[in-house]
């Protein structure tokens, strides 16, 4: 009797839980259909389901439609999980000179920062840093790699 009750209760709780999660999703992140195996609100959630980086054209720091879409999701997520502060890392590809790339990376990080602030994220939560061309993620000698390196990465810190 008690066993049955427990099992029924557990089933009920699981269903209720799913409903709650679905409801939460429906309210705050309707477009995030992503990977359900990661814990919502975790750093992994941010990277996998939101997207932690945006990309830039050669020598540019303006945000295109794809970048704005990612940043819209970042802003929403950061509004929901308000305990995180953030460092925005600006990067450049290796096909420029060092000092200019340091400033270009900073300009890209600043563009992301301004966008997130405009979307309601408190500026006190946002820091920027530029690594110029010093931290490539793709190392091949082709445009496909350089385009991956021209990026701004939103890195979560301190929950």
């Amino acid at each position, binding site marked *: 009797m008690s066993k049955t009750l427990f099992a029924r209760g557990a089933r009920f709780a699981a269903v209720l839980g799913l409903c709650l999660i679905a409801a939460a999703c429906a309210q705050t992140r309707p477009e995030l259909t992503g990977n359900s195996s990661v814990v919502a609100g975790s750093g992994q959630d941010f990277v996998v389901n939101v997207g932690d980086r945006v990309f830039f054209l050669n020598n540019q*720091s303006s945000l295109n439609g794809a970048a704005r879409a990612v940043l819209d999701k970042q802003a929403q997520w950061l509004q929901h999980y308000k305990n995180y502060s953030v460092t925005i890392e600006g990067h450049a590809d290796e096909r420029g*000179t*060092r*000092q*200019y790339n*340091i400033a270009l990376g900073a300009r890209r990080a600043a*563009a992301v920062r301004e966008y997130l602030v405009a979307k309601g994220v408190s500026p006190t939560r946002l820091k920027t840093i*530029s690594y110029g061309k010093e931290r*490539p993620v793709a190392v091949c*000698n082709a445009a496909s790699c350089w385009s991956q390196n021209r990026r701004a990465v939103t890195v979560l810190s301190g929950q």
Partner: protein
Amino acid sequence: MSFAIRLNPMQTTGMKQMWRRACRVVAGALAVAVISQPAFALIELDITQGNVEPMPIAISPFAGSGLQEDVAGQISSVVAADLQRSGLFKPIDPTAHIQQKMNVSTMPRFGDWRTIGSQALVTGSIAQQANGQIRAEFRLWDVFAGQQLIGQQFFTTPENWRRLAHIISDAIYQRLTGEKGYFDTRVVFIDESGPKDARRKRLAIMDQDGANVRYLTRGDDLVLTPRFSPVSQEVTYMSYVGGNPQVYLFNIETGQREVLGNFPGMTFAPRFSPDGQKVIMSLQQGSNANLYLMDLRTRRTTRLSNTAAIDTSPSFSPDGRQIVFESDRGGSQQLYVMNANGSDAKRISFGPGQYSTPVWSPRGDLIAFTKVHQGRFMIGVIRPDGKGERILTEGYHNEGPAWSPNGRVLTFFRDTVGEHGGPQVWTVDLTGYNEQLVTTPSFASDPAWSPLLD
């Protein structure tokens, strides 16, 4: 670190008098040589001419007594290597020398040296002193005139043998070209190790020929763009210590490091003023980088540019009255020259492509730069008025020129393609015809030359 090398006053006075006398006598002989030997003429008259024919010179292996026999041979080898790398001299293989086993007292058989085509001859001896020091003597001879041009003697400790060799090379270079040498100098650079996507960078220093590499930081923090003080054993560079990228000052002799200033943002691209009393650099604020000057004594900072653009890589003219820098205020990276107080900035580069990392020659007559055009990275020079642009080297990736203290040679780094590629330090002289790799233990970038050591 003591590099004291003592000139014996009595002996040098004697030798100097001899030298002066010889000089006067030889001046006429050299004038003749100028006419009959174009190599002399080119070297003495115009080093900016392309394709200088190197002067054949014989460096007779130095004689050494007892313990110093190996050192003696090494010193003369380093002298030969220095002169060869300059591109202005062609040392003749010692096995081709007819007169062998010379020491500093041996009178040259000038006919023998003329036979092998040598125009100048260097002889020397290294001897052990009772106090553990070594005595080094050398002579430079004009083979055609049959006259001595230099005779000098030094005392130093045996560990200093490389510096001794470079000082001898400088004396020879100066006597034969009429310009100060640059061999007794060092180069500060960034040592790079590890894979391309996780490079470890260390501040390092080496002799200009790549010997005696020492590491000044451990590689825990990213370090970039070191620059030598033109007057002291100090370096300014950028470091990411504590995740806060700032310009630092580093004293090579004491190992002391300090952050420069308390700026409300990232500082980068530092460089000393010609008197070594100030550092000029960029401060990043939001999307813009502007130029600031810091007085190292008063610690006061002055803002020199104020544009919604990236202003960076500032470099003073040697008289301290002007500053060249790069800016994208016109839409793409170009070179600008302004007054030292920040006024009257004028664009000087107008060719196709982007121009960056300008650095003013210590002679004042040229500005070296990196130029990027159609995916090619070049090192070039341009006059401060924007005229006379010349490209010295061009390829997949050449970047970051820095001048030798005599303004005759540029060092820069050249990156190679792909995942396993990496930067190496090279030199090229103003002719653009004498590219030389500086061999380093690992990948190396951002070289910057010291002044001549005292």
